[in-house]
């Protein structure tokens, strides 16, 4: 993807050094084998700001998200999320930094054999002790938060249903609830509502649930 494919309703240049930014990308390059996907991408997102990446499929939008979260290594450049240098982090430091980034995947990526509630609780895995995970004994506050998130996306009734028994749209809403429960500082959404039905109001209420204070009406961006 070249940077021209990146369109934002808001100035994306930000401050020159990217300080005080929720997300700051400088000269990011990434190639898979011989295919150059990103070359020299720079982008700043200020706290409270909404930025939309638009581009045809295969342009590299998802790759940007993978680079930001450290799921994929990068070839050149820097990625800073709320003072965490994501490009340089490893192990425990990377895990800590990831707690501050919520990512809603294009393909929901739920664990199909777990209940919707368990999938939503996965958002708290970075915070709870290992023994609690082993025994499935999440703190009451986390369970309350998870149920509240499910309620927000309209799936409270399905809390104890297995994720793979839900429809595509419902699964995507579970994925959104998971990210809400994570309470991250930076929220990345990779076509977050592509599977949510367009029934009047559903999409907008879904998006409203994770974008409570939009600087501009979300409908303006369509699907992004």
């Amino acid at each position, binding site marked *: 993807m070249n940077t021209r494919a990146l369109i934002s309703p808001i100035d994306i240049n930000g401050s020159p050094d990217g300080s005080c930014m929720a997300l700051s990308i400088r000269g990011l390059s990434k190639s898979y084998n011989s295919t150059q996907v990103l070359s020299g991408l720079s982008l700043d997102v200020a706290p409270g700001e909404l930025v939309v990446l638009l581009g045809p499929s295969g342009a590299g939008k998802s790759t940007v998200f993978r680079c930001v979260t450290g799921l994929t290594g990068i070839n050149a450049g820097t990625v800073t999320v709320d003072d965490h240098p994501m490009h340089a982090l490893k192990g425990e430091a990377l895990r800590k930094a990831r707690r501050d980034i919520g990512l809603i995947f294009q393909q929901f990526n739920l664990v199909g054999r777990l209940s919707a509630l368990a999938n939503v609780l996965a958002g708290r*895995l970075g915070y709870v002790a290992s023994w609690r995970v082993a025994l499935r004994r999440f703190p009451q506050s986390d369970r309350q938060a998870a149920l509240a998130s499910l309620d927000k996306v309209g799936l409270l009734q399905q809390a104890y249903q297995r994720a793979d028994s839900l429809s595509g749209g419902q699964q995507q809403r579970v994925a959104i609830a998971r990210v809400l429960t994570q309470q991250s500082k930076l929220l990345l959404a990779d076509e977050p509502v592509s599977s949510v039905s367009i029934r009047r109001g559903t999409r907008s209420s879904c998006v409203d649930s994770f974008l409570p204070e939009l600087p501009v009406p979300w409908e303006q961006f369509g699907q992004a």
Partner: protein
Amino acid sequence: MGSQKPERVPGLSSEGKYIEPRFQPFSSDAIRTYLVSFALLTAFIACVRIAEVDLLRLAEGMPRLARWAATAWPPYLNDLDRFLYRALETISIATVATVVATIVAFPLSILISKNIVASNFIATPVRAFLNALRGIDTVVFAILFVAAVGLGPFAGVLGMTLHAIGVIAKLNSEAIETLPRPPLEAVELSGANRSKLVMFAVLPASLPNLASTSLYVWEANVRTSTILGIVGAGGIGIEIKAAIDLLDFEKLLTLTVIVLAMVTIIDQISAYLRRRLA
């Protein structure tokens, strides 16, 4: 392989008919086929010679087998309770060994799954250890344990457990390695460490496969444990060996029927449970 050869393609004649390439008996492809066939045949003949295969001896032995088969009727039923207890012992050996092996094998299978533990530093020695367990047969381990802990089913349990750990861990890791990556990534992104990832995502996602593997190994173990008795490691094999040593074919018939019934029932139970899991 190697150099690029012109591909065999159908041609087209001037009358619009398709012309198929003719078989060329002296082409390099054909000669290679002759050589490979000759080598395979030679190797098989060598194996037949080394294994001392002798059809004449089989022909001489057949009447003896037939005589014995005739003396097997009626089956000997006086010791039926003891035989059935031995069958239960056989099933118990297999069950204990499979359950213990399943529990021990799970963490080991995580360590050798490439998608969970990327470093070879741990995986390589663990994999080598498991290969050794898998490479040494249950009966060999059982002989070793009979010498170490004495005659009886416990030696069989120990031997069978070791071998089963190797088998189950290997099959489990293959199931774990084929888990779809994205859901695991999503859990990782919440900041979960490896152990949380395993407990929260890998275990539930691979559970049906793991259970199916263990059931399959259990079924195979029941079959294997019928011969453990022959080396003194418990089970119905002890009775089989005694009957053969004494040429007591009435007992042997009873025992064979018990083994067949037992194995069939276990196979059916295992198959039913695995179907339910799928």
